[in-house]
């Protein structure tokens, strides 16, 4: 079979792949409406419940003399906006990874990327205290890259080649190692307090200043993912197929990986490691809208936002008035899902 033929024979199914743009449209639109509702609920709930009307006034007719307006402006609003942003970021990075590597178990938390970022943060807090948030984001980005290189390097050094399960195993061990070293550093240099937020993973401490630095990274990440979504779809059919269709697979993979690191790295710098959003949400999106990443990526972004904002509401409701880290809530949902995926995987894949 010549190259041309193989490209043709595989190009055919590409156009016929299961895709539901209408469903995707409904999910994006409905998801955004649900997100607005979740925002409102999230802003009004908390240690002090605030009426909806007051929320409305705090946003549109802000009065700095009122405590409730202050709470909404300085505590609740940045928190919920942060939740929406990083939820979208984690979900999008998971979608990119799952598509590019054809690995159903890909997630920035599970594959060591978040742990690498956290490790870099531990180093920064211990040896360069007083770094600006922008510098922290950059270091976190570098750490995320280090974590990814470790996991993928070890995964591909494995006898018999890289398999999804192998990568997940390597990821778990790298996470254990990096977390142990970070914890050791935290104890040695007494920075446990600064790092506590990172272990826990939650959006409770979000500030407008952090958001101002973060949103461009996340915006570029998500828009970039949309731009290369067609290529990611091709890659998700296999490297050979993508190459046959004229995709420069190496280049696209590098771009995709940089986008993942930007999204995950900046998110970890702000809220700590939150696993499983990047695992669950793309799977659900793919199930709902088909295999085209043009639709999977925006749906993942919207549903990821929604999941984290809702989980954060739940996190505040479990033991009021105490705060539970949102990451713990998401793990409790995510773990059964992960087990389900492993059980479904064929023996050969594992």
């Amino acid at each position, binding site marked *: 079979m010549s190259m041309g033929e193989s490209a043709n024979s595989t190009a055919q199914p590409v156009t016929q792949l299961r895709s539901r743009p209408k469903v995707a449209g409904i999910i994006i639109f409905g998801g955004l409406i649900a997100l607005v509702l979740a925002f409102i609920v999230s802003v009004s709930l908390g240690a002090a419940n605030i009426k909806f009307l007051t929320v409305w006034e705090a946003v549109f007719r802000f009065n700095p003399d009122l405590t409730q307006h202050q709470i909404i402006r300085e505590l609740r609003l940045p928190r919920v906006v942060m939740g929406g942003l990083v939820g979208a970021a984690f979900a999008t990075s998971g979608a990119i990874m799952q598509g590019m590597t054809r690995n159903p178990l890909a997630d920035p938390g599970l594959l060591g990327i978040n742990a690498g970022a956290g490790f870099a943060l531990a180093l920064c807090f211990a040896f360069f205290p007083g770094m600006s948030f922008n510098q922290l984001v950059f270091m976190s980005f570098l750490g995320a890259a280090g974590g990814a290189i470790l996991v993928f390097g*070890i995964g591909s*050094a*494995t*006898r*018999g*080649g890289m*398999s999804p*399960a*192998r990568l*997940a*195993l*390597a990821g*778990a*061990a*790298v996470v*254990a*190692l990096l*977390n*142990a*070293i970070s*914890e*050791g550093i935290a*104890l*040695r240099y007494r920075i446990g307090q600064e790092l506590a937020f990172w272990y*826990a993973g939650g959006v409770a401490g979000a500030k407008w200043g952090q958001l101002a630095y973060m949103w461009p990274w996340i915006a570029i990440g998500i828009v970039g993912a949309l731009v290369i979504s067609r290529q990611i779809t091709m890659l998700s059919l296999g490297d050979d197929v993508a190459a046959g269709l004229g995709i420069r697979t190496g280049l696209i993979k590098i771009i995709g990986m940089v986008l993942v690191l930007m999204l995950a790295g900046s998110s970890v710098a702000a809220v700590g490691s939150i*696993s499983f959003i990047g695992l669950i949400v793309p799977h659900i999106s793919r199930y709902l809208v088909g295999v085209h990443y043009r639709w999977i990526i925006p749906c993942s972004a919207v549903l990821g936002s929604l999941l984290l904002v809702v989980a954060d509401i739940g996190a505040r409701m*479990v*033991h009021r008035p*105490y*705060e*539970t*880290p949102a*990451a*713990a*809530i998401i*793990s*409790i949902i995510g*773990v*059964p899902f*992960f*087990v389900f995926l*492993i*059980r479904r*995987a064929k*023996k*050969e894949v*594992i």
Partner: protein
Amino acid sequence: MTSTAIRSRNKRDAKSWLIVGILAVLIVVVFIISMNSGVIHLSPLDVIKSVFGHGTAQQNLILFEFRLPRILISIMVGAGLALSGCILQGITRNPLSDPGILGINAGAGLMVVLFVSFYQSNTAAPIFLLPVLALIGAFATAGLLLAMAYKRGEGVVPSRLVLVGIAIGSGISSAMIVLTIKLSPEQYQFVQTWLAGSIVGANWKYVIAVVPWLCVLVPYVLLKARTLNVLSLGEQLATGLGARTNRDRGLLVLAAVALAGVCVAVGGGISFVGLIGPHLARRLVGSKHQVLIPASALTGGLLLLAADTIGRVAIQPSSMPAGIVVAIIGAPYFLYLMTRMKKG
């Protein structure tokens, strides 16, 4: 011909037992170093004097009330976890088996956290209850793990078992975070240090709570060494050699889970000892379980004791939990083993 074969086997056995002896001597050496190290420095001579009853009151207090129970707990917990890992690795024929990695330790820990969060009084009774509770948690988790990793037609595939175990472990850890939020600061502190695998709080009560269990479980495992040899050859060979595979395997898994549960009850969440201990021991003495079992136990005890001592010396006056020290050594070793494992 046969006589030379027997002689060379005897020679190898003798060499293995010699290594076991050396391990025991090493434990004694680290024991003495560990007795010496800490915030208040005592010379080896002081230690020996105190051991024979000629120390000052302060020396006695430090050595016998603080350091000695902690050292004994380290050795016992390390040995127990390594034994548990040794059994699990032999039976599942999975080199990555370790009660910590498989989530069994987390399950045992969850019960302890649940108990701490519901039990309010400070009387002495609970310490003896902890092993029992941890056992229940360990058994429940092991059951869940097997049910989730078993698939009809395929049985329990090693990597699936490990992945499911890791997942269950991380789910349980999250559940623990949710539970610990509402604890009082003192309870929270206890749970936190305990989870990190810190043996700081060890006292004689912990030692007494764990000794009876080990006295039953360790001899049982030693008696079953021959069965373990047969089982580690694989299902078909084992049945062919006349082992009652299912019954024996079931009982040994129960013993392994019980060992892990009891050790977690007093030692906290310590992973990787059960992984490295047996592997190092196997490298030293080979895979014959009659020697491998004592060698694993000694290696595990030595490892955890060394880790606890390093943790105590590394950051003074506070200390680094032994669990962290072990993870920093153990996780790379896990990665190394993983890259050498064949697929499937």
